[in-house]
C-alpha cells in the first residue's frame, strides 16, 4: 500500500483545493460539539476530535428530504422531483466506524431490488477520506462488531495522525487520483514505523472486546424472554439512540402543505417512538418500551443479518455516551449473551 505524508498545517490548503471540485463535508465545531457539516473553507474542518455528536449518515440520509413537490394538491397535477447534486461529494476526516456505516447504508439503499435514487444521487462518485482513531474512547467497541480504529474498508484515503503530520494511506484508485496534484512526499521508513507504533498503541488502548459470539442464535430464541422487561425498564422512549446512530435508517413519509401546494417528505423516524407503529384505529402492536427496545436490538443484531447479511451496529458508542438514562447497549448485549 502506498503511503504519503502531509503536514497538519497543509491540511486546510489541501481541503481548499478539494473544494474546487467537490462538495466537502468535514467535522466542524459548533459550540462544544463536533458535527459533520458542509464546509466552504479548509479552515473550518476540525480534525482533533474523537466521535462527532451526530453521525455523518445525514450527509447521505438527511434528517428530512423532499421526495417531490407539488404546486397544487390536485393529484392530477405534475409533481416535481428535486434535481440531484451537481458536484460529487467528499467526506473528510470521518472515522472508520462511520465509514462502515456508509457501507451499511449502501446495502440498504443500493441493493438489487431497491435502488434509492435520492440516496444514490448523493452517494455515487462520493470520495471518502477517513482518519484513523489514535485515541479511541472507552465507549468505542468497533472491534467487537467487525471494525477497527484503522480499518480501511470503504475509504479512498486513510489519514493517520503521527504528531505534526498525517500519514496518508492510499487505499483506492479514487484516492490516488485525489492526491494527483497535491505532490505529497512519500512517507518513508521512519514515519511508517512511527505510524505503526501509534496504531498499535491505539489498538492496545481499546476496551476489551464484548463477548457476543453467537448473539444472533441467542436472540432468535429470546423473543419471548422475560429479560426484555428488565432490559428496557429504564428506557424513556426518546429518539437519541436512533437519531445519533450512524446505521439507524428507518424513516417516515409525511406531507407538508404551503399555500396551495406542498411537498412529500422523507424524515428520520425512530422505532423507539410509540407513534412509529401506532395504527389509525388506535391499536399499537408495540405499545411499551419493552416491545420497542426489543425491536431495536432484534433489528440490529438478528433481522438485518437475515435480510442483508450484516448487523446494524458499528460500535461508535454514541448511543452509549448520549443515552439520557445510561441504557448501555454494551451491557444489554452482554446480558443477552450471558442468558
Amino acid at each position, binding site marked *: 500500500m502506498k503511503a504519503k505524508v502531509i503536514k497538519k498545517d497543509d491540511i486546510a490548503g489541501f481541503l481548499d483545493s478539494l473544494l474546487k471540485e467537490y462538495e466537502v463535508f468535514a467535522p466542524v465545531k*459548533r*459550540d*462544544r*460539539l463536533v458535527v459533520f457539516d458542509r464546509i466552504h473553507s479548509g479552515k473550518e474542518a476540525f480534525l*482533533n476530535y*474523537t466521535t462527532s*455528536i*451526530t453521525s455523518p449518515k445525514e450527509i447521505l440520509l438527511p*434528517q*428530512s428530504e423532499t421526495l417531490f413537490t407539488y404546486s397544487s394538491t390536485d393529484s392530477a397535477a405534475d409533481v416535481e422531483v428535486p434535481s440531484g447534486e451537481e458536484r460529487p461529494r467528499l467526506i473528510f476526516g470521518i472515522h472508520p466506524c462511520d465509514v462502515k456505516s456508509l457501507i451499511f447504508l449502501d446495502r440498504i439503499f443500493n441493493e438489487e431490488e431497491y435502488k434509492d435514487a435520492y440516496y444514490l444521487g448523493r452517494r455515487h462518485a462520493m470520495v471518502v477520506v477517513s482518519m484513523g482513531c489514535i*485515541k479511541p*474512547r*472507552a*465507549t468505542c467497541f468497533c472491534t467487537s462488531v467487525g471494525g477497527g480504529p484503522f480499518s480501511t474498508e470503504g475509504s479512498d484515503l486513510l489519514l493517520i495522525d503521527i504528531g505534526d503530520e498525517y500519514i496518508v494511506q492510499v487505499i483506492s484508485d479514487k484516492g490516488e487520483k485525489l492526491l494527483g496534484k497535491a505532490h505529497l512526499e512519500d512517507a518513508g521508513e521512519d514515519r511508517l514505523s512511527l505510524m505503526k507504533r501509534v496504531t498499535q498503541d491505539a489498538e492496545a*488502548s481499546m476496551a476489551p472486546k464484548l463477548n457476543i459470539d453467537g448473539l444472533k442464535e441467542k436472540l432468535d430464541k429470546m423473543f419471548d424472554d422475560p429479560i426484555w422487561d*428488565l432490559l428496557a*425498564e*429504564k428506557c*424513556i*422512549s*426518546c*429518539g*437519541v439512540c*436512533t*437519531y*445519533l446512530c450512524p446505521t439507524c435508517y428507518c424513516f*417516515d413519509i*409525511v406531507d*407538508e402543505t404551503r399555500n396551495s401546494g406542498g411537498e412529500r*417528505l422523507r*424524515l428520520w423516524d*425512530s422505532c423507539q*417512538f410509540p*407513534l412509529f407503529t401506532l395504527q389509525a384505529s388506535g391499536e399499537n402492536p408495540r405499545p411499551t418500551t419493552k416491545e420497542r427496545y426489543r425491536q431495536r436490538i432484534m433489528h440490529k443484531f438478528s433481522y438485518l443479518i437475515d435480510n442483508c447479511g450484516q448487523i446494524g451496529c458499528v460500535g461508535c458508542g454514541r448511543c*452509549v*455516551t*448520549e443515552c*439520557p*438514562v*445510561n*441504557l*448501555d447497549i*454494551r*451491557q444489554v448485549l452482554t446480558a443477552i449473551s450471558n442468558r
Partner: protein
Amino acid sequence: MPDLSAKIREVVQKMLREQEVELVIGFEQGSMPLHSTPCFIRNEEDAQRLVWNSFCDNNLAKYLVKRPEKVAIVAKGCDTRAIVELIKEKQVPRDQVVIIGIPCQGMVDRRRIEAELELNEILEYEEQDNKLTLKGDGFTKTVNRDEYLYPCCQACPHKNPTTYDILIGDMVAEQAPDQYPDIAEFEAKPPEERWQYISGEVNKCIRCYACRNACPLCYCKECFVDKTHPQWIGKTTDTNDTFIFHLMRAFHLAGRCVECGACERACPMEVDIRKLNRKLAADVKELFGYEAGTSLDQIAPLATFRPDDPEEFMLGV
C-alpha cells in the same frame, strides 16, 4: 457530599423484606465514570446495587406515572417537586408511593468537566467529601464538586424534599429564593438579539424529543407534536416549526416545570432549553405566586384564577 448509599440500602431492604412496597426505584452505578443510572429493585439482595453520589441526576418521578404496583422512590428535592405535581394532576396516587426523601447538595455537570478536559478521557473517578478525583490515561485531576454543579442545581432553592415519607440524611441549608437573574439579564437584551439567540439554539435541535421524554411532567399519551389531525406543527427541523415546538413544550409546562433540568441534560445537542422554561417559571411566580411542586394543597396556577389577576398586558383602548 455525604455517602448515603448504605443508609438507602438499609431502608430499602427493610421495606422489601416487610413487603411494604413491591418495587423501589433508585440509582445504581452507571456504566461509565461520572454516571449513575436509574434502577428498579424488587428484592432484598438487589438493594445492594443502590448508590447515592453526585451523579444521581435523572428525575426518577418520570417512572411513577401509571404504575400498577406500590412503589418506593429515592427522591431529591426536584424529584419530590415533580411527584407533588404528578399527585396533584392525578397521575400518581399518594398512597401508592413511598417517598424516600434525600436532601440534595446538587448534582455534578459531567459535560462541563469533560469539556474542560478536552480529549483527556476520564476512565475512573472517585468521590470523597467534596472532592472528585478524575483519572485517565496519563493524568489525575482533583476538582471541587461544588464548582461543577448543573446550572439548575446552582439556582435551586429546594434542595430538600418538599414532601417525603422517610428522610435519609440531614436537611441542608436552602439558598435564597431564585430571583431568576439570568432571565432578567436575557430580557434586558434587544428583542432582535433574543430572537437570534433562541433561533440559534433551536436550530441545533434534532427533534429527538429527549427533552420531552426525560421530563417527569410530560406524560401525555399523545403529544401535540405527534398530532396529525390537526397537525399543529411540521415534523422537520425547519427553524419555525422547531421554534414553536420549543415554545409550546415550555408553555405546556408553565406552572408545572419543577426546574430539575432533566430536559437540558437529556438533550444531546446541548440546546439551552431552560431559557424558555425558566422564563415561564419566573412569570408564574411573579404573576400568580406559584412555585411548582412546593405544596400539595396549592391549586395549579392554570387550573384556577383570581378575579383580580393581573391584566396589564391587555390592550388598553
